[in-house]
């Protein structure tokens, strides 16, 4: 059980793909790699969750942390290609009302 993170970025935009399971064991690694990306103003980070096979509140915590940090610095967090399961997790916790989530890669509107 592990999590993999791939990223590439240009001046302003960062693209991250996460795969694997996000739980109490792997979330700290994810936080460690993703949170530093939120530093700086007006950053736009797009996180692709297509290949995440499991996630619970520990993973939600990582993305909430990123969301808070980016919002503070007038940046933006976009979570894209969420599976039905993943969308449901954001829906039942109420996070889908405040965060930008999408089930496809192109349309990242709310």
């Amino acid at each position, binding site marked *: 059980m592990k999590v993999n993170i791939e990223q590439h970025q240009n001046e302003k935009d960062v693209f991250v793909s996460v795969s694997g399971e996000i*739980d109490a064991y792997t979330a700290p690694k994810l936080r460690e790699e993703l949170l530093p990306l939120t530093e700086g103003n007006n950053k736009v980070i797009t996180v692709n969750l297509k290949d995440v096979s499991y996630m*619970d*509140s*520990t993973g*939600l915590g990582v993305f909430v942390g990123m969301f808070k940090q980016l919002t503070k610095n007038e940046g933006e967090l976009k979570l894209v290609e969420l599976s039905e399961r993943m969308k*449901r*997790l954001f829906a039942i916790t109420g996070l889908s009302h405040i965060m930008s989530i999408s089930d496809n890669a192109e349309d990242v509107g709310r």
Partner: protein
Amino acid sequence: MKNVMDYIEMKIPAKPEYVGVIRLTISGIASNMGYTYEQIEDIKIAVSEACTNAVQHAYPEGESGEVIVGFGIYEDKLETMVADSGQSFNFIQKKEELGPYTESTTVDQLSEGGLGLYLIETLMDEVRVSNTSGVSVFMVKYLSEERENHDKAASDHETY
């Protein structure tokens, strides 16, 4: 009321790397019992959240401990208890000692466990939490269709 039960108990070190092992186990048990894919995923999250709470809050930094997970397998439901006292327990006795899950308990527990306990409560049909001699989380998921309206969010996805 059906009283026939098979019982499985696992003891894991209170370390985050073992939460996934419990998840694999409960996935196997729930699959054997005939739960749908959606239900199994819900159970996996709820039980993982309880284990995560136990692993993260039960023992101070640097102190080792154990988490006990008991699975009560019935014809019509799966009962799971996660206890961080590290002591084996009498499953039946322990579950009878637990009081009803009240509104005040919910608020207290939510402030402690954040989204985790909220998810447990949302994804399972019955949840009880005990704070005597460590923390025990007892949760039930029913197999039969009519009980699924307990979990309205889930029922939207039950297409089986």
